[in-house]
């Protein structure tokens, strides 16, 4: 229908597409680097410290996202070994953990707002940054979950192994990256919480 590239003798080359993902990760990294720099400029320039002890929920979500990286790794390993049932199972597990992470983050917002009286519209914008960091990260998590579901759909459609591995790799790059970004944000917040 739309893609009709005359390939001729050139083989279908997926490497550049994988490279696209790496570059996207760069852009995403720059985005979070900009937000955290914004935090530093704001809190440094205005003398507004954060002064919030991060809720425990963040500890649990960190554990969950690390666990999800492990399950996704196991799914990749299963896919490489042509064990597709196992791959599917680990993908579903990753999906559940991803959704759990999402839920815990939202719960953390609840704790922040209702238990700790730290609001998004705080006059100390350092505190608003906590919501922005987590919220923007969750936007990425939604994209990652969609990507994961797409890979999962592929496993039910009996696509060629090359494509299956390609999808697995694309998902893995993005998923592990989001785990790393979350750890970065959490450590950043922990270091600045006083």
């Amino acid at each position, binding site marked *: 229908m*739309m893609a*009709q590239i005359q390939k001729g003798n050139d083989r*279908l080359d997926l490497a550049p597409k994988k*490279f696209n993902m790496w570059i996207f990760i760069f852009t995403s990294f720059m985005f979070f680097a*900009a937000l955290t720099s914004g935090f530093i*400029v704001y809190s440094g320039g205005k003398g507004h410290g954060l002064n919030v002890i991060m809720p425990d929920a963040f500890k649990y979500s960190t554990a969950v996202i690390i666990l999800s990286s492990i399950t996704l790794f196991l799914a990749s390993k299963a896919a490489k070994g042509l064990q597709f049932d196992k791959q599917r199972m680990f993908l579903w597990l990753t999906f559940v953990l991803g959704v759990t992470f999402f839920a815990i983050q939202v719960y953390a917002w609840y704790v922040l707002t209702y238990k700790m009286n730290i609001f*998004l519209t705080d006059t100390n914008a350092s505190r608003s940054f906590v919501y922005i960091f987590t919220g923007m990260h969750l936007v*990425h998590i939604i*994209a990652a979950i969609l990507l994961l579901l797409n890979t999962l759909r592929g496993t039910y459609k009996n696509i060629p192994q090359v494509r299956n591995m390609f999808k697995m790799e694309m998902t893995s790059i993005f998923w592990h990256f989001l785990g790393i970004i979350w750890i970065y944000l959490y450590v950043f917040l922990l270091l600045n919480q006083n």
Partner: protein
Amino acid sequence: MSTLAVHDHGVAHHDDHGHEHHHNQSFLSKYVFSMDHKMIAKQFLITGITMAVIAMILSILFRIQLAYPDKTFPLLTTLLGRFAPNGRISADFYLSLVTIHGTIMVFFVLTAGLSGTFANLLIPLQIGARDMASPFMNMLSYWFFFMASVVMLSSFLVQKGPASGGWTIYPPLSALPKAMPGSGEGMTLWLISMVMFVASSLMGGINYVSTVLNMRTKGMDLWKMPLTIWALFLTAILGILAFPVLVAGVVLLIFDRSFGTSFYLSDIVLNGVQQPYEGGSPILFQHLFWFLGHPEVYIVIMPAMGISSEVMSVNSRKPIFGYHAMVYSLIGITVLSFIVWGHHMFVTGMNPFLGGVFMITTLIIAVPSAVKTFNWLATLWRGNIRFTPAMLFAIGMVSFFISGGLTGIFLGNAALDINLHDTYFVVAHFHLVMGSAAIFGMLAGVYHWFPKMFGKMMDEKLGYLHFWLTFIGAYLVFFPMHFMGLDGVPRRYYAFTEFVSMQRWLTVNTFITWAAIMAACAQVAFLYNFITSIFIGKKATQNPWESNTLEWTTPVEHLHGNWPGEIPTVYRWPYDYSKPGAEEDYIPQTVPFSQTMSSNLPHDFEDNPKGLEELNKFTSTLKANEQVK
């Protein structure tokens, strides 16, 4: 961000249809939702030109106000309705005009129109690839740009008019919907449009970088790439690193506008009412904005530099002077562009020592810029110059870059900037150095690659007319502004000639406006030429400029995949023009050294000992033969 998921669908499409040859493409998939990089390039170009014409009309409108602040033009009311009551453009709409003119020119014309057109057209063609890394993402990139354009223009249809806080959208004006008419829906639409625009830019940029790094044909190592590719590649890297920072700034702005946070807002009194915002820092926005904003001006100028380098080398029939220096200076500009943003903020109460640091980094940019300028001049020197319209525009680009660049040295100085900040001196500076220069680079590209894009030639005579009127017009418009700026005339003012001390500038304003109208009329010559040439232009030959680069080895009739057979292999750099001993004054990149024995030089075989041996054998037999004679 959801594009990722969509992107993957595109890959799936490939799989299903990638190997079916010779489809009959429907109108929709060929001309509208095309995934062919050449068609996408044309889409970008035509949308870019349309936006440029609109932005130009906006500029003429505010020039009329500046030249005739006391006269009434009933026609304006007829055309603009409530925006120009009683035959005069209203003060609020004047601010909208400047804002949208700036936004469209910087982002929609000189970022998307320039990079989008030429990166899409030239990257696959000049490096020898069938298409972009992800054609689907490439298509999305254009349609996001198109939607961004539509949303931006639609802000003229809302009751209170478009955004009017300047293209830099500093808070608090942009953060408080009630601050002024343009801060309302117009600003919201501006933000929506820009978010789509950034998505488009990032998708394009990711593709460009990935394609250049992964999909070069056999033999095309990085040091054999034309300077256009180097420039477009580094431009894409700048975009990838800088645009996400703008998004971060805009996200915080959106939260301030719509969710009640106070990132940028503090101590605001609106219509005599104290607002609840506290503790925010408007300077934070300026940091985030200019961290993008400064690289953005290089995103605008670097493709123009690359295009001019290529066009000037081809039409001087000489190798580009200092190819490596040209590349390293582009890299230098790329790196430096990230550590100079503070020079836009000298008067924000910045620590003077910090200002000094930014001043030094800013002035260092003069070094790579001067390297490029001298190399262009040295390329022209004793060249066998062909004054095609493209060549004239490329030379014009160098001219504007020099005359605008010189004033950059004044403005980069933290002490002088106290006086010059936000005056017409700044307006004059950037309209020459990045406005006119980049537009001329873009036009050089259009004239030069028109045969490649449309298979037809543009009319040369109209091209010359277009060049001279635009060139003279641009200088007449922007040169006098330097003196206004030195006199302290502030930019963006609705009717500054009402101030007694500035009344004398009214005559100059009138002069500038008429020069601008002349330059605008000259663009009609271009538009006429461009449109009619597409349909009734002379048919182009395969290599009309006798150029070396790969795009001219493709057939005139476009086909999906660019080359009918195998992709050609590259053996040499792209600038073998007028090589002594060669049969013709150009040797395409696809000609192996074995076919050009008489023109080979020892340094052609720097890392090829076998070739060098062959060359020595050849020259010694040549000598021996001569001795026999």
